Structure formats: C-alpha cells, structure tokens
C-alpha cells in the first residue's frame, strides 16, 4: 500500500499511460472513453507487477469483457413458503448485515469474488491506494494536455481544421 504513494510510482504510471495514449492515438483515430478507461486500468495493473489479486484479474480478463455481463442468478422462490413456519433466525454467526456489505465490496473490487473477509480487506486497501494514484496521474495528464493546447491554440486549431 505504501508503494502507491511514492512519487516514483506516480511518474512510472503516468509516463506509461501517456505512451499508451500516444500509441492508441497513432493506430486508431477514434478513442472512446471506455477504451481509455480500460487502458488506464490495464496500465495500473501492470504497474502493480502482479502481486495483488485485483491486478491479475484486470490483466487476465480484458478486451471488451465489460459488455458481457452475466445475469446474476436470483434466489429460487418456492410456492410453499407462505405455508411453512417462519424460521426465526437468531443465530449469532456473522450477522447477514456485515455479510451483505462484504458481498457488495466483493463486487466492486475486481477479481475478489470468492475471497475471505481477511484477504478481501487487504486487497481493498491496496486497490484504494492504487485508485487514488490513478486519479492523481490522470488529472495531471489532463492538465498537461489542456495546458499544451492552451499554449499554442492557433497552431492546434489549424491542424484540427485540416483533419
């Protein structure tokens, strides 16, 4: 978790992201926000160097897999539930409140669908730190690009007009 806060990691990530951006710009003229988002996530996972589960999950299942959403299986509802006696659930295991929240967290962090509570929390802290760095880097790149545009507006506009 500490490594995501160093300036060095920040520089590595932003330079890699910028290079990937240049490459994608040169190959295909149209870059959607979704592609950029996926690219940014992949570069982030690469920077993680495969030590965390979420980074491996991002790298393992890319390439427009976001549109293929599996339908979540709903709980089976039998007809006779009303006739059955209501089961009083006062057991003192992990209360379902915490379990529900853990399930929601598992859905948010990539690749942690079947992780235990303990490991899930560890992955989450690393994921949060990485996301924070990603936000910082992308903000910096956006600033850089806007500043580059503001410096020489006439030249840029001329080149855009030719496109």
């Amino acid at each position, binding site marked *: *978790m500490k490594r995501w806060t160093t*300036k060095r990691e*920040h*520089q590595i990530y*932003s*330079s890699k992201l*910028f290079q990937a*951006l*240049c490459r994608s*710009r*040169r190959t295909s003229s149209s*870059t*959607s*926000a*979704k592609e*950029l*988002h996926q690219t*940014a*996530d992949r570069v982030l996972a690469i920077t993680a160097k495969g030590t965390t589960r979420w980074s491996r999950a991002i790298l393992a299942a890319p390439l427009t897999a976001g549109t293929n959403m599996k339908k979540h299986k709903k709980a089976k509802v039998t007809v006779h539930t009303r006739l059955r006696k209501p089961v009083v659930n006062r057991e*003192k295991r992990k*209360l379902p*409140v*915490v379990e529900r*929240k*853990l399930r*929601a*967290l598992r859905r*948010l*962090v990539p690749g942690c669908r079947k992780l235990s*509570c*303990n490991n899930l*929390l*560890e992955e*989450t*802290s690393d*994921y*949060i*730190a990485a*996301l*924070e760095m*990603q*936000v*910082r880097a*992308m*903000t*910096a*790149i*956006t*600033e*850089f*690009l*806007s*500043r*580059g*545009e503001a410096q020489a507006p006439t030249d*840029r506009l001329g*080149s*855009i007009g030719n496109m």
Partner: protein
Amino acid sequence: MADFSAQSYRQPFPFLDIDPTMESLTQFAELNPQSFILDNSAFNFQTFFPLSINDSLFSNQASEGETMSGFIHNSNQSSVSAQPIFSAKTEMEEISNKRKALDISESSSGNSSSTSPQVSETGIKRRNNSGRGKRAKSNEKEMEKPKEVVHVRARRGQATDSHSLAERVRRGKINERLRCLQDIVPGCYKTMGMALMLDEIINYVQSLQNQVEFLSMKLTAASTYYDFNSESDAMERMQREKAEEAKELERLMREGYVGIGGVACFHSSSTYGPL
C-alpha cells in the same frame, strides 16, 4: 473526562464487575491460590488503568511484584475508588440490551489497548456468554452472584480451547486490516463498528471509480485536441509538469487543504464540482 473514565472502566468490566467488594476478592483469593491466574489477571489489571489515578498505587507497590497480597491490595484500593463509577456503569449495562453493540464497542476499546491478552480475556468471556446462550443480562447476573462469576473467571483464565485461540487470531487479523483501512479511507472514526466502516469503504471505492471514469472521459476530450505526432519531447515536458504539480500540491497541503487523499488539490477546474 466522564467519557474517558467510562471507557477506561469499560475495559476492566469483565474483571471489576465480578468483585465489587473486598470480601469477594478475599474469597476468590482463598478459592484460587494459583498464582498463574492471578499473575495473568494482575498483569491485565495493571494495564487496564494505564493513565488513571492508580498509577501512583502501582508504582508504589511495584516492588511487591505480582504476589497475592500485593494484588489484592491494589485491586482493593482501586475497587474502592471504582465503586461510584462502577455503579453508574452497571446502570449503563442494564440499559444497553443490544449485546452486539456491547461486543463491538468492547472489542474496539479492547483492541485499542496494546496487550493481546486483554482482547483474549474479553473475547473468551463473551464466548462463555454465547455458550450459555444468554444476552447482555447474563453480565448482570454475574455481578449479583459472585460465586457463579468465579467459575467464569476460572474458565476465562484457561483459554486452552484451540477454537477460541484460532478465532482470536482471526479476529485480530481482521481488526488490524480494518485499522489500516481506517487510515486510508477518510471519514472513518475509531469508534465505528464493522458495518459502518464497510459502508464508508464501499462508498469511497465507488466514488473513486466514478472519478476515474469521469477523468477518462475528460482525458479523451482533452486528447482529441492534442497533436500527438508532433510530440517529440513529450516526456521532458511531462516531467516538468510533474514537478510543477508536486510543488503546487505541497504548497496547497501546507496551506491546509484537506481533500480526499490530496486529490481535491488538483481540482483546479470547476468541472469537478458535481463530483
């Protein structure tokens, strides 16, 4: 001050509530001459009052070590002083019927202390309660019947149950991870239970993911107007930009800007408002 005393006396709750009077203490001393339990309890007892008035008592009697008489003397003196606050606490216990809240607050206050035996003591006591299947009222019963309480104490002292040991270790690990997350996620108080903390964590992760998505849209918009082919010395300019941003960030931090992980400092443009 009242809060602190309530909290500091909440820690020795499983210990003090059992022996409100000197007589029961001496009874216990006679029944259980084993120094092992006393040592354990004495150790816990001393750590229970780290910053209280009893410090002077302990320092005076430190030479006595963990002998029975010294222990009883210490606990007698402190139990006498603890009685008025203790009576207020018993009322608190009677009022709070939610056992889970009690568990969570105790575990959180127990975890805030440095020694692990403390956590184990409270944890095992709680498990003994759950083993009997009673709720918070069982604690009151222990206060009324000191003899029954002695059994609980003896059981608590042993802790040889492998299951309870494993559970203790597991819970310790989870609490440690939660504490790490507490430092990272803003808006988390130490007194928050697991459910609230998870709520905050989920909200924070969602907000970060939304930020990334929004930024990716902004980046694509900004990059369409940028001529990448003429970008030869891009990396140099990037490094310079980074240095400037870092300096600006430091300056803003010094001026006392508090943002989400320092990100708010970068929100120079007004379009970040709706986020």
